[in-house]
């Protein structure tokens, strides 16, 4: 049986049932009232609609009724005033939880929202902020994230949910009937590989998806082919990457097995782990267990092999073996397996050879977390291991994968970018900041000589800080965010964009002191845009800047647009390097603190994350396409002029792209 067949029987079509017809007419009446209602009174009329919806979706065939009416309910204002009003911002990973919410109104709301996605995906309806592909993609992700509930026999947790779980299952099958399941696995596997290639620090969601694929493969099987191959590669990386762990025997049995293995067997295990880890960026629990066991295996050091170190990493191992073993012992555990990948990548970066790093890491090993900092880590990551272990694991990951830092679902791109750039550029400074917050729950910085102390400042954009990010971000962002906001306040009244002064003060000396802004801050209109573009070429394009490569990452601001080229918002990124890709096209490689760099900005401007010479975590665009979305960049005040003359057409092409998208209504009046 194929995956498609499995769900087709749960047909949600025939609306012949009398009760359903009656409920449908009650729903129509409630929708009419909502439609009639003035915007200020929408909320009063949403309740009745949700109430009827809740009863309809419990009926067989009810979801079909809801789907037919979903666009109308949306237009009537069912989602007005809630997060669901912006379908483009909804997170697929939250859908499963809402569908089993205790409050039937939330279940109804989520079902109606999904029905709206379905209507758009089927091409039956259009939505201003949601295009057909986007809707389809969202639903596929929802299915992918909830495969277990679609196929798996209900586990204990699902059984206790009873009717709520049944509803979720029926909603998922209904979606599967419409978008088709055959390509969900395919899309899912492709999606996972695309995400993995960016080597995010946070891999929880990806691991969850792989676990669900494992269930689906196990329950239903699938046709042989490349999809199956890709899926199995993922599943084995997580659940059985080596000979001794192939059958996913459980950690205890695994330890028994390796305890009696011979040297060549152990060596094969170590290499198997290393291969799977570097293939996917994921670390199996068996791998973590193996590493800890290997610490006490005296016959031969297995750690470098199991970490798959390259020549730089091996050199670090020879110099700092004691420190590295202590890091493995303190940071790598079945609750924090990813620390192993962070450690391997950190060693291969060679940053241990940077003199302040070994004492800083030694300090980190003995660092105790106090007060609020301790509570926040515990809140974010749970009690499986002490908060210090989570933090140390997080430190290794951030230092090993600086470009894997993501902002989570928080408006804190500035802070995430800062952490990433320090990890890349100034790792011992980052550890210095971590120590301050861990021990004293404060951060001290200076703004043009004025001391700033985060503990004295009111909460910023992120409130008390995110808990859905990596441990280092969970610790630091609330403080960084406040300091950033305070620097903004200190700039109040200065003419021009405050980032001009904040960025160098906030990040470090290596941020160029001059700053070019494409728009007039007061009017929001383009100002001196051609000069702005010309200057960017002169500063960053190797052919016009005298062939000088970019030394340090430079913060920059981009105007993010959606796939329809509409302006979405200003966003902080960092320019990492400008170079030709394999095909000779000049590209800008940059870091986007957004958790997934691969975004479609419209009109063919699609950020690439692999296949164009990107390193892990980099996004890239052709030079022109990138520049067409830049609105702020830093530039050296003292810079030799390049010899090449910049052709006017180059400027015009970029200008046209900007005007066609985010700057459409920002052209100066004159």
């Amino acid at each position, binding site marked *: 049986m194929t995956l498609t067949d499995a769900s087709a029987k749960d047909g949600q079509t025939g609306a012949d049932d009398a009760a359903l017809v009656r409920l449908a007419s009650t729903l129509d009446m409630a929708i009419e009232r909502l439609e009639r209602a003035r915007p200020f009174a929408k909320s*009063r009329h949403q*309740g009745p609609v949700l109430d009827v919806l809740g*009863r309809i979706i419990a009926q067989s065939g009810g979801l079909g009724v809801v789907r037919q009416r979903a666009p109308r309910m949306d237009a009537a204002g069912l989602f007005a005033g809630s997060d669901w009003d912006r379908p483009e911002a909804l997170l697929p990973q939250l859908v499963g939880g809402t569908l089993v919410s205790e409050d039937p109104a939330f279940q109804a709301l989520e079902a109606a929202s999904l029905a709206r996605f379905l209507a758009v995906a089927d091409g039956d309806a259009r939505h201003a902020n949601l295009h057909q592909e986007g809707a389809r993609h969202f639903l596929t992700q929802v299915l992918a994230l909830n495969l277990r509930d679609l196929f798996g026999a209900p586990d204990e947790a699902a059984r206790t949910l009873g009717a709520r779980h049944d509803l979720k299952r029926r909603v998922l099958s209904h979606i599967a009937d419409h978008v088709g399941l055959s390509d969900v696995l395919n899309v899912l596997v492709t999606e996972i590989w695309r995400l993995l290639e960016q080597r995010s620090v946070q891999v929880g969601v990806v691991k969850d998806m792989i676990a669900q694929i494992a269930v689906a493969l196990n329950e239903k099987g699938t046709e042989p082919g490349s999809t199956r191959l890709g899926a199995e590669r993922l599943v084995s990386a997580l659940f059985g990457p080596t000979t001794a762990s192939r059958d996913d025997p459980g950690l205890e049995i695994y330890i028994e097995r390796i305890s009696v293995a011979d040297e060549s067997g152990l060596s094969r295990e170590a290499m198997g782990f290393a291969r799977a880890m570097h293939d996917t960026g994921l670390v199996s629990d068996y791998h973590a267990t193996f590493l800890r066991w290997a610490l006490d295996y005296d016959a031969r050091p297995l750690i470098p092999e199991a970490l798959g170190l390259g020549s730089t990493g091996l050199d670090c191992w020879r110099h700092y073996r004691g420190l590295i073993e202590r890091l493995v012992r303190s940071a790598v555990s079945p609750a924090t397996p990813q620390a192993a990948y962070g450690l391997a990548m950190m060693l291969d970066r060679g940053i241990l050879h940077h003199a302040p790093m070994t004492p800083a890491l030694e300090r980190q090993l003995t660092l105790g977390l106090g007060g609020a900092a301790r509570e926040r880590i515990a809140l974010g990551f749970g009690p499986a291991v002490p908060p210090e272990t989570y933090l140390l694991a997080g430190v290794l990951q951030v230092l090993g994968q600086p470009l894997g830092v993501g902002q989570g679902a928080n408006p804190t791109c500035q802070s995430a970018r800062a952490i990433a750039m320090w990890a890349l550029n100034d790792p011992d400074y980052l550890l210095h900041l971590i120590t301050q917050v861990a021990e004293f729950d404060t951060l001290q910085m200076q703004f043009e000589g004025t001391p700033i102390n985060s503990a004295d400042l009111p909460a910023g954009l992120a409130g008390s800080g995110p808990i859905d990010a990596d441990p280092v971000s969970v610790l630091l962002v609330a403080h960084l965010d406040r300091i950033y906001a305070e620097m903004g306040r200190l700039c109040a009244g200065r003419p021009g964009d405050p980032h001009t002064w904040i960025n160098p003060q906030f990040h470090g000396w290596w941020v160029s002191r001059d700053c070019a802004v494409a728009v007039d801050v007061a009017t929001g209109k383009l100002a001196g845009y051609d000069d702005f573009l010309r200057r960017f070429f002169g500063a960053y394009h190797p052919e016009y800047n005298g062939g000088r490569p970019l030394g340090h990452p430079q913060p920059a601001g981009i105007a993010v647009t959606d796939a329809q080229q509409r302006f979405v918002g200003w966003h902080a990124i960092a320019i990492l390097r400008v170079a030709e890709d394999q095909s000779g096209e000049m590209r800008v490689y940059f870091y986007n603190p957004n958790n997934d760099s691969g975004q479609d900005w419209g009109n063919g401007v699609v950020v690439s994350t692999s296949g164009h010479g990107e390193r892990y975590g980099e996004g890239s665009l052709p030079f022109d396409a990138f520049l067409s979305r830049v609105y702020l960049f830093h530039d050296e005040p003292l810079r030799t002029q390049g010899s090449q003359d910049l052709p006017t057409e180059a400027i015009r092409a970029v200008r046209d792209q900007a005007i066609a998208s985010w700057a459409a209504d920002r052209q100066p009046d004159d």
Partner: protein
Amino acid sequence: MTDKNPDKGFVALLGWSLNAIEAVDRFDRRYVVVAPPWAEDYCRQNDIPFVPWDFDRLNERSHELALTLEDMGVDVAIPIFEETVEWAGAVNAVLLKNPRLLGQAMLFRDKSLMKRRAQLGGIRVGVFEEAHDRGDVIRFLKRVNQTLLKLDGDPNDPIHFKAFDKSGTAGHRVIRTPEDVDNIPDEEFPALLESHLDGWEFAVEAWIKNGKIEFLNISEYVTLGYSVFVPATPELEAHRERITEEIEKLIEVFDIDFGFIHPEYFLTSDNKLYFGEVAYRPPGFNALELIERAYGFNGYQGLVLAFDPKTTQEELDAFFPKEVVDAKGHAGCFGVYPRRRVVSRLQVPEETANHPYFEFHELSDPREQKVAKRSAFGTHWGLAYFFGDNAHDLRDLLKRQEELDYYV
């Protein structure tokens, strides 16, 4: 905002009711909301025309409000709540240059004056008396039961206690024992005391223009304070002619030229109609919504027509349907009170959820786990709405709800 007709009246809604505002916003009359200052931000954000006003006790500032509204070009004020009835009277006395309207409003606001006026006009009322303290209540309770030839130890017939100036079921208590009397808070005095009438209780909603009834609805109570439905059962509607006569008497006795009244009556077992009380404002318990569900017209918009001096007879004829025969069915609602001492969540009873008459509910989630003991009729936690063809089935269904747990 719907396009407004400049040739029609400009009305002021006295009191804050989103239902009323929304209905009038969709209507063709210009309007302004007069409500306490806390509503100001909301009105500004939503483009609702607004005049901030504190409706405390009526004072000399009523004239100031009248002049403010007159300057804006307002033609008439419509009271939305009991507390704004006398304000509307005072304001309309100025706007319509008719000082009598203030006196009329004072009658509506004082339950005792109202009852005497009705009695003087030859309308049948039950035994009633005014109470200024608890002693008065005990005396009345004893006297009524002596009259009924009860012996010591017989259970008392209840009496009704209604704070003078509270609306609907707020401040309405049923008194059976001296202990019940002790539970009355001081601030509910003075109050009106009434003997209990065994019978069929119902309410009327009447839209009046030029002293003539434009639409008369009979709302049948299943249980006072719990449930009501419209139109009434055929058995009660059989009395429509007599009831209409009674309303015409009220119009005459209270000298009502225009507006909206909401009186309550008892039909006793000996087939006599007793007048309970009358309010010059929309009823509570979302009765206008039930009427809209049954008949399809918006009661608040009807209110505007009835108050607006520039309304024509043609407009009224086109607006109001024909009573009873034009109803699409019977609409009822049930006010839900938690029955258990401790509740944790809302769960519509399965037999209700599956009943074909059940439409939807507007129940709030339990805000507190502990349920306050009901003393006066108090406030329900929300309404459940029903609609169906058969009045008797609907009545029985509403009655049945009283035995079901919506909160568990």
